[in-house]
């Protein structure tokens, strides 16, 4: 078991590093250009602010040379004289990111006004976790009960409804249902706000309540689209287990159906269900990008979307890193649970 955990942990760390490396290599050249432009702008601004510098030069070319020298000096201090793909710079960037030092955002700021990427991300992250964790928990509760119910009465109306609902809902994009929900409940019947961003500042005592109110519509949408496939999944696991010999044996002894379904069968279906729960919790964070864009929910997903729209590279790198970390933690936990429940996995056959 220890060896299994260790190999998984090493793999996960490796994946994290690879993700970072790919991200940096994809946006690196752009980042370099932006940083350099920033420095040129900064130097020029400083010189225009201080006319005495410009006056002290007799010719234009001399002045230009001085400006260029200043720019080059700063390049050297920041290590920009080397190309972005030099091992030193990539290594340094990765080291900084590992320590959660993402630098400053180019355009975006947090609600509190800070441009530090770390501040921005840690302000948005709890909201995403709030929305999607709540949704996942509700989905899994409904899903498990509905799944168990339909598994206990295979072929019944409940079973057929659940199965068909699962199949139909799985082919609808969540964000499109989101648009319909906004159309229905914000435009036609004005019950919920169309934008999920609360309109009062976070310092206000009513903020939490307002946030919860704004959360209702996205929450309903995510749950509505999600619970069908969960129920279907649980049902299929349960149907498989209900055909096992030990359940048959219990049936022949005469233990009542309800008890068999809810305690014996469900207990045996638990391992894959728990595993998938861990996976879908972390996976939902990635899916948050589009859903949050539709509902304008002020979380990580929308931040990511905004960062992509204005190409705010430090924010993109930071958010990708955080999303990957959460995703990997989810997979890691799922792996461990799977290995814990199913001994064949960890012995490696």
């Amino acid at each position, binding site marked *: 078991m220890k060896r299994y955990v260790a190999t998984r942990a090493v793999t996960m760390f490796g994946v994290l590093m*690879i993700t970072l490396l*790919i991200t940096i290599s*994809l946006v690196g050249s752009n980042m370099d250009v932006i940083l350099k432009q920033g420095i040129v702008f900064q130097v020029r601004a400083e010189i225009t602010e201080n006319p005495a510098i410009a006056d002290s030069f007799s010719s234009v070319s001399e002045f230009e040379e001085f400006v260029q020298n200043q720019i080059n000096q700063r390049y050297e201090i920041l290590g920009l004289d080397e190309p972005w793909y030099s091992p030193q710079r990539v290594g340094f960037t990765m080291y900084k990111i590992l320590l959660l030092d993402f630098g400053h955002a180019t355009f975006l700021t947090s609600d509190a006004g800070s441009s530090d990427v770390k501040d921005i991300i840690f302000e948005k992250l709890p909201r995403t976790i709030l929305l999607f964790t709540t949704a996942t928990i509700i989905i899994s509760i409904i899903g498990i009960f509905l799944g168990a119910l339909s598994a206990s009465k295979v072929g019944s109306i409940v079973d057929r409804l659940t199965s068909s609902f699962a199949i139909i809902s*799985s*082919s609808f*994009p969540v964000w499109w249902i989101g648009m319909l929900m906004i159309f229905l409940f914000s*435009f036609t019947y004005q019950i919920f706000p169309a934008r999920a961003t609360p309109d009062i500042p976070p310092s206000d005592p009513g903020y939490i309540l307002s946030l919860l109110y704004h959360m209702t519509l996205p929450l309903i949408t995510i749950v509505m689209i999600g619970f069908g496939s969960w129920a279907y999944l649980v049902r299929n696991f349960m149907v498989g287990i209900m055909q096992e010999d030990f359940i048959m044996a219990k049936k022949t002894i005469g233990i009542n159906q309800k008890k068999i379904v809810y305690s014996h069968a469900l207990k045996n279906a638990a391992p894959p269900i728990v595993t998938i729960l861990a996976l879908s919790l972390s996976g939902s964070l990635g899916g948050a990008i*589009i859903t949050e864009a539709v509902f304008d929910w002020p979380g990580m997903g929308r931040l990511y979307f905004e960062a*992509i729209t204005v190409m705010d590279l430090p924010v993109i790198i930071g958010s990708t890193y955080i999303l990957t970390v959460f*995703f990997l933690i989810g997979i890691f936990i799922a792996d461990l649970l799977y290995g814990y429940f199913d001994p064949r996995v960890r012995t490696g056959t």
Partner: protein
Amino acid sequence: MSSISPQEIKEEFFKSKMGLAGIAILGTLILISIITMIAIPVETFQQWNNPGNWISYPKVAVPIWVNFLNTEKIPEHSILESPNIQTNSNGEISLTSHQFGINFNYNDFPNDFIYLFSSEYVGSPLLQMSVIRPDGIKLELISMSLPHSNIKTIHSERIFSTDDVIKKNLSLQSDNFSFNLDRLSAEDIVFSKTQTNEPLKGNYIFSIDTYSIKSETRMIESKLIIGGKAFGIMGTDELRRDLAVGLLWGTPLALFIGLVVSIASVVAGLLYGVYAGYKGKKTDETMMRFNDVIYALPALPFLIILSVTISNSIFVMVGFLMIFGWVGIAKVARSMSLQIKTRGYVEAANMMGQKDSKIVLKHIIPQLLPYAFASIAISVPAAITTEAGLSFLGLGDPSFPTWGQILHDANTFGAASRGLWWWIMPPGVMIAITGLAFVFIGNALDAIVNPKLKR
């Protein structure tokens, strides 16, 4: 994994209602695609993002079939292209008269009217535009001379109903109306009853007369647009685009994306997984480690970064989607091939000294084919929704707009909160129907391949 012969699968499949429904929907979609590709040239469709191409269409017009459901008739947008032409030459002066008849039968005023022409002439002809209403009143709209030219020249112009001259001319004829015309726009006056400011139903004739001296004026193009609030079977969007064109062309695109991505990823995953499982030991270990790495990459953020930094061409995007598509299949294929590997005939083939590639291709892969077909069908909707999602975020290919992109535009222009249902509903319904067709087929196949779920 019991082996089922293709014949059995076929029989079972045609017994399943769900499978048949899926095939029926898919057939319809393929038919739509073929008709679209023949009827609407790609060139037209590639002009989707070129506003100049859509200028004669109305803004956010509802589909015309809404008129069948409502008693209040919404004015339809009509583009009149074939006027009744009369030429009259009387000595020095020659007259060319173009007449457009329109049967106006709606309960609301049109949005505007535009006369669009290009003419070939010498000198400086005079152009007069007037309208004869159902009640017999003739209203002079505009009288203007075309720019002077000594040589033969071609002049194109658009006369808009918002033109100040038209407004002024109408106010000179305000005796016809018993209400104040000051704040009304030209179309609200022309199409109004004389007693009250309500639409007057009946036949209107717009006539455009061109008088020229000594030479004849030839109209090359002559078009009258009565700007309505309803257009086409699917309506138009904020940028005046005919949504029917976008929706129809979206069908072949979605099928292309979905099928190519899922077939390619399933084939790749199958070969990869089977090979790893068959080889075993170190090869299996390394290949599965690599698989784990791809599996653990967060797909959506990566797809976004890739499309922003590398290219958002639809073909490159298909490639990106494949990168993340094959992983799950490879895992399952590996575990299946681990089982099949131990069967007698595979070991026999191995002992006879057959090549690895031959064993994998001839003995193992055919066993997995039913599973492969089921997974192709099941993974199509995911590919389509992912691409739609990326397009929805505005990262799609602008030269081949998809349903996702139509929804992106709808979201950008706030269609949901403005109640523009015809802009939101159809693209999503199309995505869902396409997905549903494949889910049906996939589930029907899956039930045959994994009989345990059926019961």
